[in-house]
């Protein structure tokens, strides 16, 4: 489809105007080539825009008769634009070089690089494939200026991401939408090998055509299409070893027992100070000296083990094997692209099968994916296409627990100290870890991982697109009509086979004579059961149908294009009511002499989630472009080969409504059968409006340097406010929680992006390519209908005037070292308890002598980075190539959690050895942690835990080698390439501990961020 579109637009857009000086009725002859020297046949040459005068032959030669000299000649060839070499001296053997036009995907079509007036950025699939990442969004991290991707779950097969274009425009649900081959779709099914290019659409000019859906930006993914020519076959085989970038460094059994005693002593003191019931004290509450000695010496590991839980239950590496075959080819009648892939992923968890019950709980993910894009030319004016893609995926795992996943498993694993009893009794029964732990005393990691049964999820996804394009040149030259229907289905079936297992524990056996001894006994009430069967299923489908009229024609130096689109999009998931969007959109562009560009976009879009009369909205945009390098004063500049300025303004929207039961039909009040208001609706509820301004520059210098920069300012209005706090309960008669959402708020979001590239072919053997990008965005909430705190608060507003995602908590002033310091300090027991020495000092910001929620202050820069950047170096030398890609972010804070924050789990890390103890005070020993203890106020959000989250990561390291042509030809291949690459090999950050990755979501108790070593071979035929 793209191919076709390209042809029509190009025919009309790309005009070569050459001026040649010749005598009347003279003949001019010559040759036309492209900038790679390839001959171009079929180039249409006209004089003064007259009907066809000549055409180049198979060898690219032409001869033309002209009336007089000098004569103006136009060279037109699809896919090529004007060459700058317009001073052709020779009348014979003139060599005309035409430059290939670069086309960039835009909403519902594509435009030449010259004519794009919107803020977009395109990256080729080739560059993404180099990451060898297992998912597209991982590959995109750091690559597109303006796009920020956070992995929220890294579990193989269930990866999920939070992605934002240009930061936040709304505090509400406002996810970036993804278009795959022109249709809004889930992108989980897209394999990297299938991707032709990925484009980010950022400003209003680029997104207003998406109407009320576009304010968070749009990512367009274009898959590869067929080609006219010999079939190209590409086979890649990859083998990857992946392991967590970082794991917590938990302490040894002896250290654990020792620190446990330290913590328990603190907790006992704390309870005393509170006057509350004492925590367990006395001999059972502490590890005795004898016990400590056993742990230290290791003389009785049966009952005093010293284990390394994490390395016991996590594999050193997770293996990933991938094979992918793509075929690309076709002829004038039919073109195709086919990709077949198989991926097998292991797990970082070391669990084993359980032959006794003959089931296999081994953790693995297997996926088979395919895609076929087919284009058929039915007659010269009619083309049709059929694109089908999808995958089948199996994810097998132990049945960890109802509604539980690997994240829970990891959490429990990290919580189990290294003095946990052995997995099994000598007779092979599961031994639980009944120790002195308080939080989760009855668990066996071994049992949870190996004896609970298994779950097997099968996910199938299909995406289908069928369309046709009819040229209507006979009707109106330049007109064509397109119809397209797409539908996707996604279903998942989870088979749950769960069982319970009998647990045993270590008990003290009372001796009739002599000393008591330790032994094993079954825990009463626990039994071994056989597998129970259960099932979870989910289903989703969507369809998108559209009719489109395209118009594209040149009138001399004037180029006009138009687009009129009518589209209906529907999605339906599970038991939810369907959601429909209707979009009537149009685009009009006008270009003069390939120098001045004007573009107007508008979408008139509707959604049933808003009340009748409020349902449809108009989202217009206007943008201008000026290609200075086409002006006479720069035309022949040797330094500046390309220079374009562009500016845009316009609107797009955000429906907020995130397609969930709770958020459907917010305009309606619902009632119960006896006439009570159940949920009050807001008949005026509507989308959020984002008014966007953007100024950009694109330039190319010295034939090797490219530069692109954009500055944007978004004014977001009609922001939906939930639970409007400024409405009184009095008179309204509704509590804050009963109030419907309303479009009351506003905010601003501004920033810039810069992308620089340097590409130099130093000699035939050496090419250097260096590029970098950086994005900055910062938002600030304006009015949010927020109800001000009274004047006794240190900060009266918690939203208005602050960024979305601003952290709020307490400022701290170190730790209390003595009771005297506590007595002299303002009372902070309102935070949860009276402090004891070693606790965190909080600051009484409002100076009322009491530290409470009135003293909360904005802390840090928020969880989302304001600055993110990427830096890429690629060197090709002979057959070798080296690629290093760094990315990172700054102006970001991390709210430490899990092990990063506090030992609420029953385990300690090496870092916590530096916790406060009275004897460390004043000795110069570093104290980087409050005193150990479960019970304290130390765990609340404060700047003790909110740390600079800036980081720099060596994301990609790649070394490749292409076999010499001769050798690969000998093997019947057009190229053979070997490569080794690393993902996430190093990361530099400012966190106080290296127990978890700076990008780990919510502390460290989630599936860890992985680093990977990959080895692969790619063979092209």
């Amino acid at each position, binding site marked *: 489809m793209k191919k076709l579109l390209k042809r029509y637009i190009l025919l009309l857009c790309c005009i070569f105007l050459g001026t040649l000086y010749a005598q009347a009725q003279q003949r001019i002859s010559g040759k036309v080539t492209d900038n790679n020297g390839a001959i171009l046949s079929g180039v249409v040459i006209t004089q003064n825009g007259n009907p066809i005068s000549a055409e180049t032959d198979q060898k690219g030669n032409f001869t033309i008769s002209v009336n007089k000299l000098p004569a103006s000649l136009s060279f037109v060839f699809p896919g090529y634009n004007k060459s700058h070499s317009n001073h052709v001296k020779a009348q014979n053997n003139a060599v005309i070089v035409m430059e290939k036009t670069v086309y960039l995907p835009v909403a519902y079509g594509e435009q030449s690089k010259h004519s794009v007036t919107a803020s977009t950025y395109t990256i080729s699939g080739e560059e993404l494939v180099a990451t060898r990442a297992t998912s597209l969004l991982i590959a995109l991290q750091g690559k597109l200026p303006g796009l920020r991707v956070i992995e929220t779950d890294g579990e193989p097969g269930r990866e999920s991401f939070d992605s934002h274009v240009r930061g936040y425009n709304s505090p509400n649900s406002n996810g970036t939408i993804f278009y795959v081959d022109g249709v809004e779709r889930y992108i989980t099914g897209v394999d990297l090998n299938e991707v032709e290019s990925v484009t980010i659409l950022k400003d209003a000019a680029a997104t207003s055509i998406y109407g009320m859906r576009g304010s968070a930006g749009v990512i367009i993914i274009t898959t590869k299409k067929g080609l006219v020519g010999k079939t190209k076959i590409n086979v890649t085989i990859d083998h990857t070893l992946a392991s967590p970038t970082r794991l917590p460094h938990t302490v040894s059994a002896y250290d654990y027992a020792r620190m446990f005693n330290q913590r328990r002593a603190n907790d006992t003191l704390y309870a005393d100070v509170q006057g509350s019931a004492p925590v367990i004290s006395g001999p059972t509450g502490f590890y005795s000296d004898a016990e400590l000695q056993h742990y230290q010496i290791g003389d009785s590991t049966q009952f005093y083990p010293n284990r390394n839980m994490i390395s016991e239950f996590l594999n050193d590496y997770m293996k990933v094997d991938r094979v992918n075959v793509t075929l690309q080819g076709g002829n004038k009648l039919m073109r195709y692209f086919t990709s077949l892939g198989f991926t097998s992923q292991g797990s970082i968890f070391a669990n084993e099968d359980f032959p006794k019950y003959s089931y296999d709980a081994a953790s693995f993910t297997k996926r088979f994916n395919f895609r076929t894009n087919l284009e058929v030319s039915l007659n010269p004016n009619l083309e049709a296409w059929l694109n089908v893609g999808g995958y089948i995926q199996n994810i097998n795992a132990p049945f960890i627990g109802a509604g539980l996943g690997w994240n829970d498993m990891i959490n429990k694993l990290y919580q189990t100290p290294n003095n946990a009893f052995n997995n099994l009794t000598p007779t092979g029964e599961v031994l639980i870890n009944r120790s002195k732990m308080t939080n989760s005393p009855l668990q066996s990691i071994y049992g949870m991982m190996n004896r609970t049964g298994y779950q097997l999820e099968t996910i199938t996804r299909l995406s289908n697109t069928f369309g046709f394009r009819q040229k209507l040149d006979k009707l109106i030259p330049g007109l064509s009509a397109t119809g397209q229907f797409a539908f996707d289905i996604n279903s998942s079936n989870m088979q749950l086979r769960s069982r319970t297992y009998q647990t045993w524990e270590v008990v003290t056996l009372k001796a009739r004579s002599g000393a008591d001894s330790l032994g094993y006994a079954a825990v009463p009430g626990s039994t071994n059961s056989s597998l129970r069967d259960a099932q979870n299923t989910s289903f989703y489908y969507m369809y998108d149908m559209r009719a489109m009229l395209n118009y594209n024609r040149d009138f001399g130096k004037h180029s006009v294009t138009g687009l009129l689109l009518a589209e209906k999009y529907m999605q339906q998931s599970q038991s939810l*009511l369907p959601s429909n969007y209707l979009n009537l959109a149009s685009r009009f562009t006008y270009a003069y002499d390939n120098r001045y560009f004007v573009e107007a976009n508008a979408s008139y879009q509707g959604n049933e989630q808003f009340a009748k009369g409020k349902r449809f909205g108009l989202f217009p945009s206007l943008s201008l472009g000026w290609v200075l390098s086409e002006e006479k004063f720069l035309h022949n500049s040797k330094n500046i080969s390309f220079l374009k300025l562009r500016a845009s303004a316009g609107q797009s929207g955000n429906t907020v409504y995130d397609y969930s039961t709770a958020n459907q*039909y917010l305009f*309606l009040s619902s009632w119960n*059968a006896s*006439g009570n208001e159940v949920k009050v609706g807001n008949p005026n509820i509507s989308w959020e409006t984002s008014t966007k301004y953007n100024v950009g520059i694109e330039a190319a210098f010295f034939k090797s340097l490219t530069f692109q920069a954009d500055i944007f300012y978004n004014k977001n209005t009609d922001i939906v406010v939930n639970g409007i706090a*400024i409405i009184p*309960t009095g*008179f309204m008669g509704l509590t804050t929680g009963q109030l419907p959402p*309303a479009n009351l708020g506003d905010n601003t979001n501004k920033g810039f992006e810069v992308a620089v590239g340097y590409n130099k072919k130093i000699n035939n053997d050496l090419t250097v390519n260096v590029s970098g990008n950086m994005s900055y965005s910062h938002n600030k909430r304006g009015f949010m209908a927020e109800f001000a705190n009274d004047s006794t608060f240190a900060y009266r507003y918690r939203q208005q005037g602050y960024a979305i995602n601003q952290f709020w908590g307490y400022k701290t002033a170190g730790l209390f070292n003595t009771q005297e310091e506590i007595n002299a300090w303002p009372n902070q027991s309102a935070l949860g308890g009276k402090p004891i020495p070693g606790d965190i000092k909080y600051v009484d910001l409002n100076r009322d002598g009491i530290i409470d929620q009135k003293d909360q202050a904005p802390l840090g820069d928020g969880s989302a980075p304001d600055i993110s950047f990427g830096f890429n170096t690629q060197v090709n030398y002979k057959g070798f190539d080296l690629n290093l890609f760094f990315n990172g972010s700054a102006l970001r804070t991390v709210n430490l959690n899990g092990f990063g924050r506090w030992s609420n789990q029953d385990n300690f890390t090496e870092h916590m050895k530096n916790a406060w103890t009275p004897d460390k005070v004043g000795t110069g020993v570093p104290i980087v942690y409050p005193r150990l203890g479960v019970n304290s106020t130390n765990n609340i959000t404060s700047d003790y835990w909110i740390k600079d989250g800036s980081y720099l990561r060596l994301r990609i390291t790649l070394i490749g080698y292409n076999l010499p042509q001769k050798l690969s030809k000998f093997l019947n291949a057009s190229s053979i390439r070997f490569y080794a690459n690393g993902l996430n090999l190093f990361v530099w950050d400012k966190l106080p501990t290296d127990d978890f990755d700076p990008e780990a979501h919510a502390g460290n108790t989630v599936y860890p961020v992985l680093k990977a070593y990959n080895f692969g071979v790619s063979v092209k035929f």
Partner: protein
Amino acid sequence: MKRKNIFHFKSGLFLLLLILVGCVKDLDPLPTDKVLVDQLLNKQPAIAGFASNCYQQLNNSFSGQSSGLLLDAYTDDGFRAGTVSDWQNGMLTPVNNLFANSIWTACWTGIRKCNIALIYLPQSKVDTILIGPTDLKRYVDEVKLIRAWYHFTLIKNFGPLPFIDQPFETDYTGWATLTRPTYDGISNRIAKECDEVIASGVLPMKWANATDFYRVNLGVAYALKSEVLLYNASLLNNPAADQAKWQKAADAAQACITALGATYSLTPMASYGNLFTQDVTVANSEVILRSNFNDAAVMNNNNGVDLKALGSATQSANCGTVPTQELVDCFEMTNGALPVSSYTSNDHSTVSFNSTYNENAGSDPYAGRDLRLQSSVVFNKSTYGKYKGQLATGPDLLIYTYLGKTGTGFNINPSSQLINDVRQSSTGYYSKKYRSASYWGSTTGGTNSNKIYFRLAEFYLNQAEALCELNNLDGAIAALNVIRVRAGQPGLANVPGFVKTQDFVRQRIRNERRVELCFEDHRFYDQRRWKILSSTNGPISGMKITSSNGTDMGIFSYQRIAISTTRNASDDKYLVLPIPDAEARRLPGIGQLPAWK
């Protein structure tokens, strides 16, 4: 372009538009998983529901008003041992506002329900066989009356507030434009609502079926109007003592008594106690409106006499709000004399008695008293009926409150929160209204406790008060005597020390009101509207009784003891309650009262 081609082009465009218009219809279906109001208008339960929902926010229980304490605990009539409330502590602030949810939020929620009902009731499409035009008119009048009642509850607590007659749209932004009217203005507006219901006359004076007894009737319209105008004429809201306001109050009370006279009558004294132990479905000649909620569990389990030691299953967890000695002192001797002539110490521990009353050892200070004492207060050696299952022929339970008596004895330590202490009274008295010995534990009741909203006796007292302020002393005495005669007390002119002065009559009307309506949520507001808070809400005392031999058979000695507790809520600041702080700031036009700023 050829004509034919243009035609094709146009028809193509037309086709496209046609498809689009067709698709627009796709957006129209409304969700099938939500009940919309249009779907309710032809359904009988919903239309009836619109009206009955309005009752949901009435304070129908005894514990709903203010953090679980009976409202009398905030007056000089009652005392609750254990934790000193923020109110008595003087810790009540607009932010720390224990009346915020129970009164402010509840009333406004109720007003919204009323205003919604008034919109949808007239739109009823229910078959007239099920809900006829008269039924609908009755629903409308009921709702109007309840809405007026919610407004009155708000203004008698928080001062004047505007009358709201429509549910605000959620996008309403004019909160700052709402301002406080005058108390007179809003009172007349509420009275006008009552007048409209009276004029419409579709509500019965009394509902025919017991199942309807919980619904407001025409009598409530008269009763509410009388209360509203009495409050409007009272000193707090009528500092200039405008006689016209008193006249309106007197007229309203007279109108109430006249209109209700044919239907209602005062209960004879013999069955006076039954007023407080009847279910809503029981027809009672005196009760105009009663709550439909039986709150016997709260009254007996958390606010009652601990009968466990006497053989009953009722073990009260807390004696709750108990009567003070000051209240007991208001109950006259049978000759009409007040037992106490004055308190001679600041803490009320020493007093001077009238000649016919003494508290000497061996005497019975509770003998020869107004019969209503027996019905309202459980005192030492008072009869308390039979518990469920007790032999009918056996004697009634006798309650002893002397120090050391198991179960019902005296709690010497009022600030203790120990359960054995809070079960026993710190004043030597227990409250009796709405309580009954026959209540049987927490599982099966025995006696009901449905709160009385309005009963006829009040309006004679309203009339007496208004006429007294108009200096029509004969009229005032006549109205007052109706209540006194029912109780078996002599007419006011016959009481010892009677002088026919406005001041004497006023004092005795106020005393009568305190006695007759004690523990019925009146004293809290009377203390305010009379502006007597600073003189009456100070020290309180109890009666420590000791038995000579420590048994029921001993000789009892009586000692008044001051109850050592913080009682700070007595200055003028407490005359009108503060609006919850956040609400006052959300409503700058209404604002906070200056005293609470």
